[in-house]
């Protein structure tokens, strides 16, 4: 009986000591004030980072613009080359047709002359 009572008393004292310890711990762990100038340094870094980000964004835009211009120049050059080749092809085709037309005309003339020649031989 005495043992049980002593045990309970010790437990009560123990839990009170726990509570006391927790209270001391809580008092010891109040928030510390931030170092002077912390906010200023944060705002400075934030501003520097924003400037840097803006600068990086500008560089990316410049790169994009340069890429677009280069792309447009290349596409233009390619298109011009294709048009030029088509034009030359068309020109060669016209020249060939003219040559064929002339040849055809010459052959027709020769044929007519031969026919006339044959006819004059027959009349003799």
């Amino acid at each position, binding site marked *: 009986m005495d043992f049980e009572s002593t045990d309970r008393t010790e437990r009560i004292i123990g839990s009170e000591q*726990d509570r006391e*310890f*927790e209270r*001391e*711990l*809580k*008092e*010891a*762990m*109040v*928030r*510390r*004030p*931030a*170092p002077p100038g*912390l*906010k200023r*340094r*944060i*705002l400075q*870094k*934030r501003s520097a*980072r924003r400037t840097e980000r803006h600068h990086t964004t500008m560089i990316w835009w410049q790169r994009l613009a340069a890429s677009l211009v280069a792309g447009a120049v290349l596409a233009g050059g390619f298109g011009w080359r294709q048009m030029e080749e088509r034009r030359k092809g068309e020109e060669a085709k016209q020249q060939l047709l003219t040559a064929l037309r002339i040849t055809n005309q010459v052959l027709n003339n020769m044929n007519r002359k031969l026919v006339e020649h044959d006819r004059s031989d027959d009349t003799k």
Partner: protein
Amino acid sequence: MAHRWQPEFEQLVDEHQSMVFSLAWRMTGDRGLAEEVAQDVFLELDRHMERIESPEHALNWLRRVTMSRSADALRRRRVRGVDLWVEIEDKHGAPAEERQSPLETRLEQLLSTLPEAQRAALVLRYQEDMTPEEIAATVEAPVATVKSNLHRGLKLLRAKATTHLKEYIRGL
């Protein structure tokens, strides 16, 4: 139509810089490192401002990111092979006006010798007055683990305090 909360960055820094710095300091045990962590945390907040929905959200976000960044900073320090606890308070001790009572400083030093998870649970419990459920959400751990860390951490800290503070009082 619900009014959307629009936080002011500078106001959030004003309100929470002490909390963020204290958490970082107690977790890293290094004043300089804690200041670096606090700066990183607020700069990250700046990048996430659009996603912050309420003052409570801002507070919880800051607590969670501070704990995570402090753990990262400690890991980086460990990789570099720096023994933090040897230098605590000697190199980066608080200026005289910020100093606590010697007993409180001693308790904090003992706290810094606890394993990281136990220290995190105790710091959030006793500095931020958070419940085990809130701590669990902040450190992304099961509630049972947090309760166990709190119990073990408190027991270990008390045992250390009993030994060290007796020596300290004897030395006064």
